Structures are given as C-alpha cells and as structure tokens.
C-alpha cells in the first residue's frame, strides 16, 4: 500500500517534470514572441521612436479609424480575402483530384516517380521560384513561346492585374498540390479494399466506385482540412507576393502583409502598420476559435 503522501509527491514530481519539459519551448516563445508583443501598443499610439513604446502618446483608435477609411486598405483587405479563399478552396480540390488520378495508376514505378517529382516545388523557396516564374511567364518565356506555336500573339502577363491575381493563386496551388496530396493518398490507402470488391461484384465501374466509396470515405478528412484552413483566411502568402509582384498589379494582389511591410518599413508609418497587423491577428484568432469549436462539435476532434 502506498502512502497518500508518497502518492501526492510522485504526482507533484510528474507535474514538475511536465513543466520542465515545456520550459525550453516556453522560454523560446517568451523571449522571441511574447516580449516583442509589447509592440502591439504601437497600434494605439502615435509612435515616436525617440520616446519609445513606453513613452509615445496614446491616441486610442485613431490609427484604426484612419486605416478603415482608406480605400487602399479596403482594397488590400479584399485582395487578401479573395486570394486566401481561392487558395484554400483550390488547395483542397486540386490535390484531391490529383490523389484520385494517381491512385488509378497501376504501374508502381511511374506512380512513385510522379509522386516524388510533384513534391519538389514545395521545397523550393519563393525567393527562387519567384524569379524563375517571372521569367517563365515573361515576354520571352516559354509560356509565350507555346502561345506562339498556337498562333497567338505574345502577351504581357505580368503587368496584367487581372491575370496576376490568378497567377499568384495558381502558382501557389501548383507549388503545393503534390505535398497537399500526401494526406489524401494516405487516406486512400486506408480504405477497406473489400468495399471495392463488393461493389465490383455489383457491377459498379471505376467512376461509380469513386463517387460512392472513395469520396465518402475521404469526406471526414476533407471537411476537417477545410475547417482547419479557415484560420488562414487573411494569410495570403507574404513570401510569394512580396517576391513576385510589381506596382502594376498592386490593385489586385497587394495583400495585408505586403502592404504592412511597405507602409511600415518604406514609408515609416509605424503605428498604422502595426494597427493593420493587429487587425489581421484578431481576425485570425477569432477564426481559429470558430474552427476549433466547429471541429470539436461536428467531428469530435480537438485540433490542439
């Protein structure tokens, strides 16, 4: 029989161990995330570097009022939502379609080869891809070369604001589809093969099997991933846009993050930039909570 005291002690020891394990990560967060958060105050100040964050005068919501009164800011928020939303949807559908297509391939080596190759872009940085992509879609790039083969005139894609938004969305989907398909491919292998055998005996073709067996089996995964992506609605991809865009296309692809960067670091409007950043964080935070409760309520799934 263990004594109560010893039991208590060992429980205390367990707790202490857990806290100790968390300590390095929490310290890291504290110094590199939490301390810099003092800067959020700047959003409510007329920040003066000389006076610093603790000495600058507070001006309440003025930065936010100005922010939301700017047409530019409204446009930027709209761009962000459109681009992020399109990316979320397409990053769901395209990898799914790809996974289903790849699943049909019976030649194992071909399948492996294709799978390996399509992961590749995921591992390249936008710094590199942006410069390559703008060449490929440039006036002398291969895209125009191919258009030429079909007798079409060379087009100047990169100054076309309408085109550029799709360019941003689709190159992102292209970069990530192979990688995003991983989860579907894994889920596909988890489907019980007897289901297919049974339906084959019933005379169902491949297409019918896909619609009636494969998709329903994946539905939980799909719904879950969609819900999880919700928190990203204002994350339209700084690295990609920042490295790819040009002033000609600001109207359609300038997003919150790039705008904050330019206003803050090239125009020195520190407080305004911070206010915009805070706005983004707030929206993301609310959405994450919503998706957390949705996932918990409908899929009984705790994200974190």
């Amino acid at each position, binding site marked *: 029989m263990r004594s109560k005291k010893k039991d208590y002690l060992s429980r205390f020891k367990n707790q202490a161990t857990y806290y100790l394990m968390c300590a390095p990560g929490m310290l890291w967060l504290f110094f590199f995330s939490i301390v810099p958060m003092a800067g959020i105050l700047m959003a409510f100040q007329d920040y003066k570097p000389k006076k610093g964050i603790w000495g600058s005068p507070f001006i309440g919501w003025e930065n936010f009022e100005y922010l939301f009164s700017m*047409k530019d800011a409204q446009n930027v928020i709209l761009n962000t939502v459109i681009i992020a939303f399109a990316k979320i949807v397409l990053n769901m559908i395209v990898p799914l379609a790809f996974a289903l297509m790849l699943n049909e391939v019976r030649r194992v080596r071909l399948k492996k080869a294709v799978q390996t190759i399509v992961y590749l872009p995921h591992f390249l940085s936008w710094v590199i891809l942006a410069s390559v992509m703008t060449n490929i879609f440039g*006036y002398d790039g291969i895209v125009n070369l191919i258009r030429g083969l079909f007798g079409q005139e060379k087009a100047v894609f990169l100054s076309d604001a309408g085109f550029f938004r799709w360019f941003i969305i689709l190159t992102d989907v292209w970069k990530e589809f192979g990688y995003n398909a991983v989860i579907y491919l894994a889920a596909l292998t988890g489907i019980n093969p007897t289901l297919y055998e049974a339906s084959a005996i019933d005379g169902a073709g491949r297409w019918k099997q896909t619609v009636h067996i494969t998709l329903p089996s994946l539905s939980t995964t799909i719904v879950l991933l969609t819900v999880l992506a919700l928190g990203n609605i204002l994350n339209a991809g700084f690295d990609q846009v920042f490295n790819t865009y040009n002033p000609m296309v600001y109207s359609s692809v300038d997003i919150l993050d790039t705008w904050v960067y330019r206003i803050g670091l*090239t125009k020195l409007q520190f407080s305004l930039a911070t206010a915009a950043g805070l706005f983004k964080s707030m929206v993301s935070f609310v959405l994450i909570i919503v998706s957390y409760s949705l996932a918990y309520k409908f899929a009984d799934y705790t994200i974190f």
Partner: protein
Amino acid sequence: MKKLLSLLLTVSLLLSLCGAAIADEDLAFQKFDHVVEVHIGMAVEPTDVTLEEGDTVDNNYYTRYLLDNYNIKVVVDWTAATGDDFNQKVALTIASDSLPDAVVVSDRTYFTAAAEDDMLYDLTEVFDRYASDQVKAIHATTNGKAAELVSYGGKMLALPNISVAADGVLVMMMQQNWLDELGLAVPTTVQELHDAAVAIRDAKPAGERTIPILGAQKDSRVYADFLHSNFSFGFDAIFAAMNAYPGYFVLDGENKVQYGTLSAETRAALEMLAQWYAEGLIDPEFATRDYSQDVVNANECGFFCGPWWALGYGNGDSFKNSETVDWQAYPLFTDDGVWNAKMKTLGTSYTLVNCNVSEEVAAAIVIINNVLVANEAVFQNETAEDIEWYPLRNVLAAMDECEYTYRAEISVLNGETEPDAWQNEPNYKLLAADTQVVRSIVPGYKQGEILHRADFLYTSDTESNFQRQYALLIGDRPYATVELNNPVYSVTYTTNETIDRYWANLEALEGSVIRSIITGKSDISAFDAFVEQWMAEGGEKILQSVQEEYDAAQ
C-alpha cells in the same frame, strides 16, 4: 595627483588656444590630434569587384586616406544593398532610434521622419566652422536653396546633396544610325517622333526584337516627380512637349497650386501614349521588364528618355556591342517650337548625423565631406576603387558643372583656349582633368559640326574617359547649347506633414492608374475617376497645404 591635474589643465588650455588660433580653412582640413571614430551605415553594390584584394568596406584606399591624413577612423556599423535593402535598414534604425553617427539616406522621407523626432544633430554651427570654402561656395551657387532643403524647424539638420542641374533635364536619346538608315530627320516634335517610331516599327532595324520607344521598367517611375528625378526611361520629354508636367506642383494662371498629373494636358498625353502603346510604338514589356537598360545596351531600341549621363556613362555596353551605333541626344519641342523641361531640385540624398554624437565627430563628418569635394578628381586617378566606396559619399557639384565643362571643352577643341587655362577652378572639381584629355579622346572634332560616335577614340584603355566625354559632349549638348525656353519648377520639392500623411497611398494610386492607362488595361475614363479619388483621399488637403506654404513664402 596635483601635478597631474595641473598638467591636464595646461594641456587643455594650450589646446583651446591652438583651436582659437587656427584659421578657418585649416579647420576644414585639420588633422585631429587623436583618432576620431565615426560610425556609419552604408549602401553597397553586392556585385562590385573594385575593392583591392583583402580590403574591406572600412579598410580600403579611402578609409586609410582619411585615417592617415585626418586621423578620422571610419567604422562601418552596417551595410546593405543599394535600394530596398538599404532603405529597410535605415527605416529600422530610425524606428528603433539607433541611427549610426552618420548615414547618407536617399529619400526625403527618412530625413523628415528623423528630424521630426529630434534624432538629428543641429549642424548649423559645426558646418559654419568646419565646412571648407569650396563646399560653401558650391552651396552658394544654389541661392540658399541648399540651406532650405536641409533646414527643419530653423536648424540645419543634414548635409545637403547638390547635383548638377543637367541630371534633371530629361531629353530624347536617339539611335541616329537608324534614323540615317531609314532616311529620317531628327524628330523635334511629338508628331515627328511618332512618325519616326512608326517607320522604325515597320522597318525593324533590329529584327523582331526592335522596340521603337523604350519605357519604364518594372517598379520604376513613368516620369520624374517633385521628390524623384535623375533616371532614364520615363516619358518626361514627351509629356513636357505636350505642356504636361505630371508629378510636379505647378501654378496655374491665377497663382493657384495645381498638381500636374491631374491636368488636361497630362490627360491628353496619356491618351496619346496609350494610343502609341496600342500601335506597338512603345515597348510591349513597358513597366514589367526587369532591366530596360539591357535593351539600350543591345542597341535594340530607337528612342528613350534620359538625363545627360544616359549616353556614354549610362550605356557603355552599347558601344562595346556595336562599332557603328551612334547615340545622340535632342530636346523635344512643342508644336510651337518651345522647349519645356521639368527642372529637378538640388539633390535628393541627405547626410544624417545622430544627435548624440560629440562635436568632434560632427566636425569629422563635415571634414569627410570637405575632403571628398576637394579631392574627388585626384582619387579617381589614384585608385581603381569605385568612388561609391567612399564613406558618406555626398555628391556636391556646382549646378552648372556639366554645361560649364561643355563650353570649356569646346573652346579647348576649337583651339580658343589651352587646357592650362582651366586648371584652377575649385568649384568644378573634374574640369582640370576633363580639359586635358578632351583633345585626345575626340580626335575627329571639326569646328561647328555635331559630334558623332566615329569622332571619338574608343579603346579599352580610353573607355572611362570615352564614357565621360560622350556623356558631356553628346548627352549634355542639348542643355548646354539649346535655349531652354521654359524651365518648369515644382512649387515644392519637399514634403510637409499633410503630404507625409497621404502621399504613400496617393503615389501608389497614381502609379498604377498611369501605367494601366498607357498599357490599355484601363481606358482614359479611368483618369477622371482617378482625379476624383486623388482629391478625395487627401489630395485636396495636400494642395491646400502647398498653397498655404506658397502664399506664406510670397
């Protein structure tokens, strides 16, 4: 202890006596009796290879020169690539109130932000005491504009940059050999330019890659504005020939301040440029190309707009790539034969000095500036190291330096004067060297005739002299020899609080509307919507504030 104290007292007394005894000009070039450290931030070219083996950004020909002769030790706290990276660094140091002792910033935004927040050293007295006569004389050539540019709240808070006026006079550069080939006269008006461009488009002298008129590249301005000038590939000459001055604050007939971009003339010019773009006269890659300069270097365009140095200095590779190419510069006139040109402000960079430095360091910074101005020509003969490595390089040139040099050189070429006559003119720092080489670089000169490329001596040894002389004698010929009937100045070349508040947004708006109209992405009606939006989003307040400043100054 007592002894030591009295010794110290004597020494300091002696020192102060010495200080009082030294004449002004000696102060300007004094050697400190101990090493004075100056910490700076610096923009560098990531691909520059002119530093000697083993030399570094703060240990090279220039820094050793300053240390040996003046006991000024330059310590480079940080460097970043010219352009965005450097600007970002400056922004961060301002934001965190950690400016180095001195840094040369390239945009007025940084100057005003730092000045507004009391981060800058009041240079009024130090400059007065330590600036050399030469520097003061060059300042004087601006009629007080230089002082005005760097004063904030009545104090001198930066060293101004004064560059030659010719930097801001943007003229048409033309590939004369194409015009000759096609039997075309030099176009002098917008209509003639159009017709010549059509002829080039149809004849395709450079094959499929022929571009009649080259324009702005990606991320670049379509015309100079009141804050930025001195760059190629805008359409300034074309706008000006249609009496349009976009980017400038100009006065209408009733002394009311207007913003040039909003004018009916600008609208008309834009409509025409859009038409030209549609006709294939303007680079199809306008505003998206990575480097417009590549096209000029390959000699694949007929016309582009640029300042004097765009020829020779600017397109050195053109001459390497072709022996027959003959680039020429001409102004573009209105239909009534008037040459209009937007004039730039003095210079656009500012040497900022941190308010926390000691007087000694501030003096050292002024002296560094004196030394550069006095010895720039000497440096170029003594070291292959690029002048950009000079710490705190701040261009100071008399505003008429190019034209003055042009006239001096022509008189030397004509035999009216000898080079010796030009050896002692401190306000024109490269004049002595220029007049000495000009006869050998331009052996084909004939009095009264326009110079062509063939008149120049071009070998790998003479390349740098060739480039400079080509720029001076051909690039600057329009401004030096043709009467500029209507120089147009902006009412202001600086921002005020109102402009600072709204400009970021308005500038972006303007840029995108202008580009999309020219490229036909929007039709001209977008212009009217733009005018309205510009006014509504702060433009009206800006005009009012500039008007008030103007009225107050009158």
